C-alpha cells in the first residue's frame, strides 16, 4: 500500500509538471502565422518558429547557401529591416561592420518569431528547385567528369550563359546532412531541358567524392538555381576568356551563346593546364573557332610531359596571356578557375591597363 501511494504521489507531481511545461510550450513557443514582407512589396504568410532560410525555401525563395543552414558558410545573407531580433554570436564572424550597419543577417540563424520586413536581391526570385535525372557521366580527364542532368518531364530552366547552380548532395557514408555545392553550367542557355556540369575532383571533397564514387547514370538528383552575375556583358569590347581546370564550363556556355547569336566580337580563350593529361575539349573548342566568327582558342601547358608531344603554347597561363594581349587595348575579361589563378590573372590584366570593372569572375 505504501509503495502504491508513493508511486502515485511521485507520478502525480511528475504529470502535473509535465502538463505545465506542455501547456507553456503550446502558448509560449507558438508564434502563430507571421507575415514576411519581402522588398516592401510581396507578403508571405509563414508559420513561425523556424529559421528564415528554410521558411523562405518553403515559399520557393532560395537564398544561396553552401552549408545547408548550419551557419558555417556565411552565404545566406539577407537584410532584415524589422523584427529580426538581436544579432547572434553565431552570426558575427561572417558579417562585416558595414553589413551589420545595413542590417544584414544570416538567414539560417534568424528565427521567424514575429512579422519581418526583409530585403532580398530581385534576381533571387527566379531561383527555383529542380528535380533531374543523371543522363550521362563522361570522363574528360583522369580527375574531371562531364555530368549531364535531364530535367523532369515538362520542366524547363531559364538561365544566362555563365551562371551557376547549386547541386544538392544527399547523405552518404559519413556525411549525415545534405550539402549544397555550386557548379557553373556548361551547356547552352537555349537548351532548357538539360544542364551539363564540368566537375573536377577536390581532394577529400564532400560533393565531388559523391559525384565521382557514388552517383550513377539514371540516378535522381536535385539542384537549385540559377545564381550569379557572371555572364556576357553586351558591348563591343574584345573578349578575353581565361580558365583553368573545370573553369572551362561557363566559358563553354558563353561560346554556345556567341555561336547561336552570331556575336562577332573578337574573342580569345586562354585555357591553362599543367600537362597533356589535364587537357580536354580541344576538338570542341576548335569547332567553336569555326562557328564563332572571330574566336581563337589558345590552350597552354605549364609543365608538358615528354610524351605529350606538345606543339602549342607553353608556360603559365598568366605568361601566355601577357604575351598575347596588347597594352591599353579595349578588352573585357571573363575568368574562371582556382582563386590562385584568378588573382594572378587579374594582376596581369591590370598591368595591361584593363580596369577592374571590365574583369568578371565568380566569387563562390
Amino acid at each position: 500500500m505504501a509503495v502504491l501511494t508513493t508511486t502515485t504521489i511521485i507520478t502525480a507531481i511528475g504529470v502535473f509538471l509535465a502538463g505545465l511545461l506542455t501547456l507553456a510550450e503550446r502558448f509560449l513557443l507558438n508564434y502563430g502565422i507571421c507575415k514576411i514582407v519581402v522588398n516592401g512589396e510581396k507578403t508571405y504568410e509563414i508559420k513561425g518558429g523556424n529559421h528564415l532560410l528554410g521558411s523562405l525555401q518553403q515559399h520557393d525563395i532560395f537564398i544561396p547557401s553552401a552549408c545547408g543552414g548550419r551557419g558555417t558558410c556565411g552565404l545566406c545573407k539577407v537584410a532584415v529591416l524589422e523584427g529580426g531580433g538581436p544579432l547572434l554570436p553565431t552570426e558575427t564572424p561572417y558579417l562585416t561592420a558595414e553589413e551589420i550597419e545595413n542590417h544584414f543577417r544570416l538567414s539560417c540563424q534568424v528565427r521567424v518569431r514575429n512579422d519581418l520586413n526583409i530585403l532580398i536581391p530581385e534576381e533571387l526570385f527566379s531561383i527555383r528547385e529542380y528535380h533531374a535525372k543523371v543522363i550521362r557521366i563522361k570522363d574528360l580527364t583522369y580527375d574531371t567528369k562531364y555530368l549531364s542532368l535531364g530535367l523532369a518531364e515538362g520542366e524547363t530552366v531559364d538561365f544566362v550563359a555563365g551562371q551557376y547552380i547549386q547541386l544538392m548532395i544527399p547523405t552518404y557514408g559519413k556525411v549525415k546532412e545534405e550539402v549544397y555545392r555550386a557548379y557553373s553550367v556548361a551547356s547552352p542557355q537555349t537548351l532548357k531541358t538539360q544542364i551539363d556540369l564540368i566537375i573536377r575532383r577536390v581532394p577529400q571533397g564532400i560533393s565531388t567524392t559523391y559525384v565521382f564514387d557514388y552517383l550513377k547514370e539514371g540516378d535522381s538528383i536535385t539542384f537549385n538555381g540559377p545564381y550569379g552575375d557572371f555572364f556576357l556583358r553586351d558591348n563591343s569590347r574584345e573578349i578575353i576568356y581565361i580558365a583553368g581546370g573545370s573553369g572551362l564550363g561557363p566559358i563553354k556556355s558563353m561560346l554556345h551563346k556567341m555561336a547561336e547569336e552570331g556575336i562577332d566580337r573578337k574573342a580569345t580563350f586562354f585555357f591553362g593546364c599543367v600537362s597533356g593529361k589535364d587537357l580536354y575539349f580541344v576538338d570542341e573548342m576548335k569547332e567553336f573557332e569555326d562557328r564563332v566568327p572571330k574566336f581563337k582558342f589558345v590552350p597552354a601547358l605549364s609543365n608538358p610531359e615528354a610524351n605529350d608531344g606538345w606543339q602549342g603554347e607553353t608556360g603559365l597561363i598568366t605568361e601566355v596571356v601577357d604575351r598575347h594581349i596588347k597594352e591599353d587595348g579595349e578588352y573585357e575579361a571573363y575568368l574562371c578557375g582556382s582563386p590562385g589563378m584568378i588573382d594572378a590573372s587579374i594582376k596581369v590584366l591590370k598591368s595591361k591597363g584593363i580596369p577592374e570593372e571590365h574583369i568578371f569572375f565568380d566569387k563562390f
Partner: protein
Amino acid sequence: MKQTPKLDRIQRLMQPGVISKEGFLGNDTRKLADIIEDDQRLVASLGLTHEMIADVMEEITDAGRETFGSPKMVGKFLKVTVEGSMGKIASPFGGLYNKENITVLNIETNESITWTTLNIHMIRDHGFYQGKGSCYRIEPKNIAKIFKLKQMI
C-alpha cells in the same frame, strides 16, 4: 584550458560530413580544448610558436601558388605543388578559405608533407593542428621537419 560551450559548438562542426568529408578530428576522442592544449605544449617544447609555424607554411605555400598546380622547385630541394580547387571551404572557427592542397616533396630524402590553406589559418589563429588520425593533421614532429625545409629555401 576549459571546454567552453563555444568550443563544443566548434567541435560539432569538426565531425565527419559536416564541413569536410572526413572531419577534422580523425579518430581523436579528446575534447577540442585538450587537443589544442596538448599541441600547444608540444609546440612550446620545440621552442616554437603557432605564429612561426604558420609563417613558414604560408611562405612555402605562397611560393608554390604562383604556378597554379604545376610543381615548382622552391629552393634547391623542395618540390611544391599547390592544387587549388574552385569554391571555398568554411572554417569550423568561422570564415571562408580557399580550397588548396599543398604538397611539399623533399627530393633529396623523398619525404613529403601535405597541408591545406585552412590548416595554416587554424594553426595561426587557433593553435589547432587537427585531431590524431585526421589526414591533414600536422604532427609537431613534422613541424620540426618543416623548419628544416625552411632552411633549404
